[in-house]
Each structure stands twice: as structure tokens, then as C-alpha cells.
């Protein structure tokens, strides 16, 4: 079973040379640590920055320079700053090649819920609704099973939706899936090292499809 860093490492393999990438809060933020050094990738932070660099050295933090998770960051040479309207303009017009975000639930048709638990947790959607409604290429990074042992890959989402039929690819602690938004279903593409197809099937509440041979992830 993969830990959070393992999920991030697997997702980093989806990033290609020349991509502009938006990383959400949580596991997606860790993906930045595994982007290969031999490709050129620009990270977009939706509060208004292209060219996000690593965290600053201690003593060099700047209150005016943060990412969308409100963490202090740095800028790489060639960075650009812009306002919030332009930031979502480039998201809406699909200039951002890849969006990686977390989820509480995903349905077999690619619906996603990640912003609200009624009566309990009200944090808001931030930029997630804008991202999932417009991005052409979205990868969800999530835990497949919650603390109570219940699958979060469902026939239908039970929580308020963030977006409808928008998720095509999911990476969890157990597997990589492709979602068939037309017919509904989680198609198993890869297994985490040492995890069997049956274990993954048992952790998937929605329609599940697996070919005869399912390769292990190449980490």
C-alpha cells in the first residue's frame, strides 16, 4: 500500500515536458517533490503565480509570497504574477495542461465531491469547482478507503458535488484507475506494489473492471 509520498511519486510520472500544472492542497502539493529534473514544468498557483519554486530557506519567508495553500514559497526565474481573475481566466481557457487535486469521493461516472460535509465541515470550494469544470486533464489523488474501511470510489457520490463527469484518472494508495464517464465504471490500470486485484476490487464500491493482467506501478 502506498503512503502519501508514494501516491505523489506515481502521479509525477504523468507530468510531461512543457506542462503547466496546477497542484491542489494536500497530497498534490507533494507531487512537486518528484517532478523529474530533466523536464521543464511550470507550476501555477491559483492565487496568482506561474513559476512557483520550493519553500524558502528559514529567514527568507516573505508574507507577500504564498501559494494557494497560504504557505510561504519562492519564485523561480521567469515567474509571472497576475490577479485572481486572470488566474482563473487561464484555467477556464484551458491553458493549464494538468490539474491534480484531492477528493473525498469520486463516482463511477467521474463526479467528484471534495468541498463540504453537510452539518460538519464547511470549508468552501476555493478554486476546485472552477478547476474541475474547465480543466481538460485532471488527476485525482486520494485515499481509496476511509478510516472506517469504506470505499470512496462509489456508484454515486453521497456528499455535495464539486463537479459532474469531469474526472478521468485516479491514483490511490492501492491503484491507478481510468474512469469511464460514458458508461460508468472504474477501470483498473495499475496495482500498487504487492496489492492484488481482489484487494482493489474489495475496496471499490462502484462498478469495477480489470483486465486479465494488471501491471504493478513502476515507481
Amino acid at each position, binding site marked *: 500500500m502506498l503512503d502519501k509520498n508514494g501516491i505523489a511519486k506515481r502521479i509525477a510520472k504523468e507530468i510531461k515536458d512543457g506542462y503547466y500544472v496546477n497542484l491542489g492542497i494536500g497530497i498534490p502539493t507533494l507531487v512537486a517533490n518528484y517532478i523529474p529534473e530533466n523536464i521543464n514544468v511550470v507550476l501555477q*498557483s*491559483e*492565487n*496568482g*503565480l506561474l513559476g512557483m519554486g*520550493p*519553500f*524558502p*530557506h*528559514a529567514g*527568507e*519567508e*516573505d*508574507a*507577500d*509570497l*504564498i*501559494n*494557494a*495553500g*497560504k*504557505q*510561504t*514559497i519562492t*519564485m523561480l526565474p521567469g515567474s509571472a*504574477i*497576475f*490577479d*485572481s*481573475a486572470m*488566474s*482563473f*481566466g487561464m*484555467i*477556464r481557457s484551458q491553458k493549464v495542461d494538468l490539474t491534480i487535486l484531492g477528493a473525498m469521493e469520486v463516482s463511477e461516472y467521474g*463526479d467528484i465531491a471534495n468541498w463540504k460535509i453537510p*452539518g460538519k465541515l*464547511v*470549508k*468552501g*470550494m*476555493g*478554486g*476546485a*469547482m*472552477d478547476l474541475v*469544470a*474547465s480543466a481538460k486533464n485532471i488527476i485525482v489523488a486520494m485515499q481509496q478507503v476511509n478510516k472506517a474501511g469504506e470505499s470512496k470510489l462509489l456508484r454515486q457520490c453521497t456528499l*455535495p*458535488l*464539486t*463537479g*459532474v463527469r469531469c474526472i478521468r484518472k485516479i491514483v490511490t494508495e492501492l491503484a491507478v484507475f481510468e474512469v469511464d464517464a460514458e458508461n460508468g465504471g472504474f477501470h483498473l490500470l495499475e496495482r500498487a506494489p504487492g496489492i492484488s486485484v481482489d484487494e482493489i476490487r474489495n475496496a471499490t464500491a462502484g462498478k469495477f473492471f480489470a483486465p486479465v493482467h494488471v501491471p504493478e506501478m513502476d515507481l
Partner: protein
Amino acid sequence: MINKVVTDAGAAIAGITDGMTLMLGGFGLCGIPENCIREIVARGISGLTCISNNAGVDDFGIGLMLRKRQVKKMIASYVGENAEFERQLLTGELEVELVPQGTLATRCMAAGYGMPAIFTPAGVGTEVAEGKEVRNFGGKDYLMEMAFDADFAIVKAWKGDTAGNLVYRQTARNFNPVMAMAGKITIAEVEELVPVGALDPDHIHTPGIYVHRIFQGTNYEKRIEQRTVRGH
């Protein structure tokens, strides 16, 4: 040049009264108008509707206004850093409209560009779409979202001149330029007020025509919400 300078935050917020709608710039605690918030808290103006991406934290930013029950309604995209906010929301003391972040920014922009509404795919098929007109363009559904209508916009810039031209610094820019354009009356507080002519016209982010009052703020705390540093 028209002189937009007022002496301080007290003079800047003149005319803000109970029940008004305010836009407040900033993302998290980055680029928030600290001086004006402090003054609004000191005066106890209440029943306010606040449009801002976030609601501050418990003891800073808009959180200070929430703590004194000055906010009747909050329009924001993300409020996860504020326990008092969540408490007031869950008990029903505070009215809240959660808006997707891009929709929030673009509804400000529309106001500043003189457009009554925008169409965006954000929120289609979710509870955000309830009661809103849906239009299909090129096979894809879009929600009609209305431009905001705010009595005052209050923004924070890095530098500004006496004519109201503004320059922001790094990611403290965020919502400030679009909100500056959107208020019926726009107040700008700046870290450094400079004479007309000191700013390069090519480098101005917000032209002074959008700014009605400007002053140099004092005692900026510029608090960092999540201090993160590199490992060794």
C-alpha cells in the same frame, strides 16, 4: 492630477455605515487592508455584507470583524482557517454564500468592466447552480453569474501615488486589482505613498481612475498564515 489622498484609515472609511456591502481584497492574510479593517472594528460598524475570498483567521483580518459580530453575511470561496466563522455558520448566526474562487474574481471583474453578468462552467450540476440560469454554448453548460454590486471596495497595494495609481507586490496582488475596479467607492491603503510621477506609467496595475481615496497605512503586521521553509 486629481489628489485622492486622505489622512488615515479613519478618513478613508467615512461613509461606511451599518448594513452596507464591502469588498475586501486579499488572499488568506496576504494583501489584506489591515488598517481599514482595524478601523471598521474600532468603530463597530455592523450588519455588513463582506465579499472576500477568505474570512481571515480567528484573531486577524476579517476574523476580527466576525468576532465582534459585525458581519451579517459573508460571500467567500474558502473559509477553512477560521473556527469562529465555522461556529457562527453552523449555528446559523452568520449568513454565508460560498462562491467558486474563479467565479468570485470574475464577478468582481465584470463589475469593473461594466458588464452585468458572466457565464462560467464552474458549479454546473452542483448546489452552486441552484436557482441560476443555465445556458449552453457549443455543447457545454454554463451558469449565469451576476456582477457584484458593492458600496465600497477596500484594497491594499504596495505603492500608490497621490492620484490613486496602484502597484501591488508579488502574490499580495490576488483579488485587489479586480476589487479596486468594482467598488462604487474604492479605498486603497498602501505601504508607501509616493508623489505623482514617481511610478512608471508602464508599471501601474490599477489606474487611479478606479481609486477614490488613498492613504499610507501604518503598523503593517503582514502576518504569515502558514510559515513553511525548506528542509536541509
